[in-house]
């Protein structure tokens, strides 16, 4: 078993992949902000945003369905919004047969709006991480004045993420191989299992701590003084500006459109 960052980033030769990371980060935020501030029930505007994302996904050579397939991650949270259709006052749209619960049309619009907003936002995020390498993403965040130290810490985290995840998977495999299911033998209790998982976590912590000490010593031996230096310097080209401005103008016109109707 092996986990790699390649599951998230999808290397392609495309216009979108070559864009400046700053443009992609800003564009994602613009799209997410727009979908969130659009008034409830602005279906046409939301549809335009959704279409824009599909178009971007196609021009990134990921195909129209790529982002849709991965977008299901936010669905469990929709449970939290489930009471809305029942609890918003307004004209009755539907009555749940058997239970007599009333679904109002206002509530339904509100619920659907939340669903669409979340969907569009998650798609935008997926597109960002599928077309931008993590190192570029971090560089972009840094260039956009995100706190430097926290971005450096995140960079370190990403670098060791998959090493430690593999370590965790090895420990899980070891546990599985020593815990056969035997006929007639009762499974150990929940508390015992929880404690074992806890001790594995503690063990993993010790290994991580030791690794960090080793890494720190190696960094010191190479002259590390608390400052990370990066050489990589993309610059904004004409295409980057065009892309950023066109997404900004689409967002603005979508907002105007929703206010109009």
């Amino acid at each position, binding site marked *: 078993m092996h986990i790699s960052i390649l599951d998230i980033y999808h290397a392609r030769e495309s216009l979108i992949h070559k864009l400046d990371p700053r443009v992609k980060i800003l564009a994602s*935020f613009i799209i997410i902000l727009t979908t969130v501030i659009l008034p409830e029930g602005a279906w046409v505007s939301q549809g335009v945003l959704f279409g824009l994302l599909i178009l971007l996904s196609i021009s990134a050579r990921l195909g129209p369905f790529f982002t849709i397939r991965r977008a299901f991650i*936010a669905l469990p949270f929709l449970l939290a919004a489930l009471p809305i259709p029942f609890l918003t006052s307004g004209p009755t749209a539907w009555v749940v047969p058997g239970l007599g619960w009333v679904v109002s049309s206002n509530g339904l619009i509100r619920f659907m709006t939340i669903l669409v907003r979340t969907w569009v*936002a998650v798609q935008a995020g997926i597109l960002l991480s599928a077309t931008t390498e993590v190192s570029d993403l971090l560089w972009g965040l840094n260039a956009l004045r995100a*706190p430097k130290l926290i971005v450096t810490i995140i960079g*370190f985290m990403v670098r060791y993420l998959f090493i430690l995840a593999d370590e965790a998977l090895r420990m899980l495999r070891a546990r599985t191989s020593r815990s056969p299911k035997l006929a007639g033998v009762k499974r150990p209790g929940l508390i015992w299992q*929880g404690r074992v*998982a806890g*001790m*594995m976590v503690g063990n993993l912590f010790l290994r*991580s701590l030791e690794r960090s000490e080793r890494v720190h010593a190696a960094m010191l031996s190479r002259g590390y003084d608390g400052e990370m230096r990066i050489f990589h310097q993309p610059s904004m080209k004409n295409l980057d500006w065009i892309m950023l401005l066109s997404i900004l103008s689409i967002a603005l016109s979508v907002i105007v459109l929703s206010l109009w109707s």
Partner: protein
Amino acid sequence: MLLSPEPLHIPDGFLSPIMAFLGWLLAVIVVGIALRQTRQQLGERQVPLMGILAAFIFAAQAINFPVAAGTSGHLLGGALAAIVMGPWAATLIMTAVVSVQAFIFQDGGLLALGWNILNMGVLTAFTGYFSYRWLWGKIGSSTPARVAASFAAAWISVEVGALSTAIELALSNTSPLAIALPAMVGVHAVIGIGEGLITGGAVRILQLSRPEVFEVGESAPGKMGATFIVCGLLLAIILAAFSPLASPNPDGLEFVAEQGDFLSRALDPSITILPDYTVPFIKHPATTTIFAVMLGTLLVFALALIIGRKASRSEG
């Protein structure tokens, strides 16, 4: 497999833009303070240590154990990080974890990131740390005392995270407080047991094999200032929940009352110490839930005290 969506990661679309902005503002301030504090504590070790421990929390979330009905218990990690590294360092570690989950794995939204950092990083770290320190002082200083105190601290940290998440959703007019609060808090009362067991187990093995790792957390800086931050933030959130802001759509609550026992029919919590998380003589469901959380906390703390003391004595 590494991605088990935690019901605490708020996606975009669930928070109103104003709430999202407020969350970012608060998160930037608190993380800024955390950066300064840990820099003083750790010096140039800060970056590699925080980075690798953040990777550790992320990886540790994959270590699970099966709980009934297809769900599994696993770690959120804020309390564990705070017990070992102190609250400010834990804030940084969890900020990195939550940011990576949002930016790379889409687990939690980008606009909602501010609140997600506050809920899962700041609040879990600080409530966990202070409950742990307080209980540990009360129980004694043996290994079982540490384990009992960490169990209770981890449980309460998850509960506080759930509580604040529900209140933020209510303030955004996304989920009525009367339903979101009991549901979130009820579900996490169970999830918190898993968190407590894993945290307790981890602390136990650390105490047995390398007790000196706890020194970092014990000498962590800024205890007083931190108390103010946690109390202030919690108080603000709870006060906001009862302000007129919380119910721009006030008929929601009355509607629940009219629908009669909608709550008890919709949510049938499998394990609750207090039935339906409501105490009979208080009427408003949200008030009742907060009251029930306080009672539950007292109960867990008392249990930790009793069991911890007993185990300490039997160990000599």
